């Protein structure tokens, strides 16, 4: 198997050991990796960065409330097919009347059903060896979607609609499949059973430093200390929506536009707090705490 080395992250992405293990395991076993965890902990980043650093082809399927397996695998375009067959009739009629100019079907032929099959990301990923397939936020999908997916994923082959053509891959060449979920709804047990599961726990301050350094390598020591200090204090307040890694990075990005001294001042004054705090209620709570003497280090 070609791409089953342990991958521990790149210059821009820190993949903690546990996640690296789970990802490695899923690739060795040829099973999808299901990642759950708080928003903003880098779930989606894993396959993106992996594909980027390894130079692999990446296919992304963002899941929404209207997702279905057809979009994901392949769809037969009945409308186009019917239009083309109508055009063929028209052309025959025109020929009868002695008109030489024909209407175009755009190179498609109704004799070849494959011309009307639109491939979804899954099919594309399966036809390219060692690609990476990301199914993002599967918890947003209608309930039947994960169950429909089950069959498609575990058999490593798709049958194209109408044409009956089979797109198959094998355990060695199959894409690395990563599925992310924010746990907005519980996924079917049978589905989870076919995945390697990993829950990303929130990084500790020490790991967080490394993550920040990956994104802002030139950050001032002092700013980093203060930023992370405040960030973890805010997380301990028991807010409705605790700030996540993504928000911390954005906040530090914001202050990095200023001179170090100003930046430090800005952090201590909690400038741009809106980047970290996302609901009105939380903001109120933080403000109350500040008024009642909550101090940042």
């Amino acid at each position, binding site marked *: 198997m070609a791409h089953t080395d342990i991958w521990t992250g790149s210059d821009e992405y820190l993949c903690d050991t546990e996640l*690296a293990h789970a990802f490695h395991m899923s690739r060795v076993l040829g099973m999808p990796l299901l990642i759950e965890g708080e928003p903003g902990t880098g779930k989606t980043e894993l396959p993106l960065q992996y594909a980027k650093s390894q130079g692999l082809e990446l296919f992304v399927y963002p899941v929404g409330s209207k997702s279905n397996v057809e979009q994901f695998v392949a769809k037969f375009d009945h409308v186009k097919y019917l239009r083309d067959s109508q055009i063929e009739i028209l052309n025959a009629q025109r020929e009868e009347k002695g008109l030489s100019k024909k209407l175009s079907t755009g190179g498609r032929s109704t004799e070849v059903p494959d011309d009307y099959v639109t491939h979804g990301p899954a099919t594309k990923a399966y036809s390219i060896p060692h690609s990476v397939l990301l199914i993002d936020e599967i918890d947003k999908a209608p309930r039947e979607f994960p169950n429909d997916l089950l069959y498609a994923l575990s058999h490593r082959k798709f049958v194209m609609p109408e044409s009956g053509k089979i797109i198959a891959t094998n355990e060695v060449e199959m894409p690395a499949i990563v599925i992310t979920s924010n746990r907005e709804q519980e996924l079917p047990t049978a589905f989870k059973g076919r995945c390697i599961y990993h829950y990303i726990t929130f990084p500790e301050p020490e790991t967080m430093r490394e993550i920040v350094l990956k994104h802002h390598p030139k950050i001032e020591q002092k700013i980093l200390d203060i930023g992370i200090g405040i960030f973890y204090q805010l997380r301990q307040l028991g807010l409705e929506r605790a700030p996540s890694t993504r928000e911390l990075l954005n906040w530090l990005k914001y202050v990095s536009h200023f001179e170090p001294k100003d930046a430090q001042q800005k952090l201590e004054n909690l400038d741009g707090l809106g980047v970290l705090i996302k609901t009105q209620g939380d903001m109120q709570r933080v403000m109350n705490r500040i008024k009642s003497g909550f101090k940042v280090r």
Partner: protein
Amino acid sequence: MFETLPHHFRNFGLATDIRTLLILRKSMEKGLVHTLGDLYMVLKGIVVKSPKEMGPFSTAFYDYFLDIKIEKGESLDNAVLRSETFKQWLENLNHEERLDEENDYRDFINKFLDEVHLTTFDIERILRGEDVLKNDDPNMKDDNPQTEFDAQKHVSQMVDYSNISLEELRKRMEQVAQQQQSRHEGGSHWIGAYGNSPYGHGGAAKGGIRVGGAGGGKMARAVIGDPNFYPVERKEILKDDNMDAALAALKGVEEASAEIVLDLEKTIKQGLKEGGIFLPYEMEKIHQKIQVLLLVDNGGYSMYPYVKSVQKLFSKMKTRFAHDLKVHYFHNTIYGGVYEDAARFKFISLKKLLSLDKNHSVFILGDAAMAPYELDERSQADWMELKKKFKRIVWLNPVKQAMWPYTLTTQWIGKIFEMYPLTPEGIEGAVVEMNRVRKK
């Protein structure tokens, strides 16, 4: 191998079966398992399917593979300390190591956990990285304690400590430690944080010995005893910690489904325009989102303990259902209507309530306990009217189910409505019932 594993893990509430064994065997064939630490990682990936299962999983793992029984509420350290396994392990440690240090037991537990959770990956990391050490003199004097501080604060390069034995690394570390005078951060020589010397932690060196803090055991230690990693008590009356499970169950009432149907009107219109060539046009069929009506009994002493948790649950729900959630209040039972506000000033007549769309999902929340004369014929008739109008209607009762038979009015109301306990499990049952009615 491990035939008894599924049965054993099942006793801890984990869904393990023959498939678990098959995947485990495949993992072994593929060379994923060499050490106990590997086994922990691999099994975790196969067995654990939610963060709530990490606690039971670790407990089951320690019990099955190490014969370390972790009692409910006990810390991992304690369980390890009183186990036979640990005692034996201590005896097998070489004598010098045991005697010459004034280590307390914590250090030994760390060491024990490190060994338990040592993975092949860790070993590979430790066994790589000769080069850096070759060029580094372990007896270098620490004359200028802070010179390295600025040099390499950020993690810029990875260093492989290849083919160095753990023993050798440890020895060198001791040599360096003897020379070191101060705290160091960064750099590639001294023991400290964030550098790429092989000692210390949090740095970029790919291998190395951790100084303080068990590496692999850290996870297990963090997980055991933390309620976040244990299943929610689904039969308990609603509290802060099983609120989210209840909310998840409630989300089940919302049913959105993607469907594409033929747009008949547009197809005909366009077909006529095109002179009789009918091309089918499609449209997305949008299912109407669920509307929720919530009637809360907020009066009376008996409901008081539950009001807060109920309010919290539905305020969380409000963000979810946005405009489609209506909340009304009543005291014990209804007489011709309910109230719009919690203080029960603004009256809404039953007639108005009945004029709502019949597709509402109605939750009535109350203990259904009152004096029998309060639930008179008129009031019962009002409830019946509601039931007739709204097909999807359930009663959620915060009182323990076992107590229901002792209250006369609870039984009466139980005859009118399907009654469920206000627990995550009960709410789920109620939602299933509602969806069942809808499909009829």
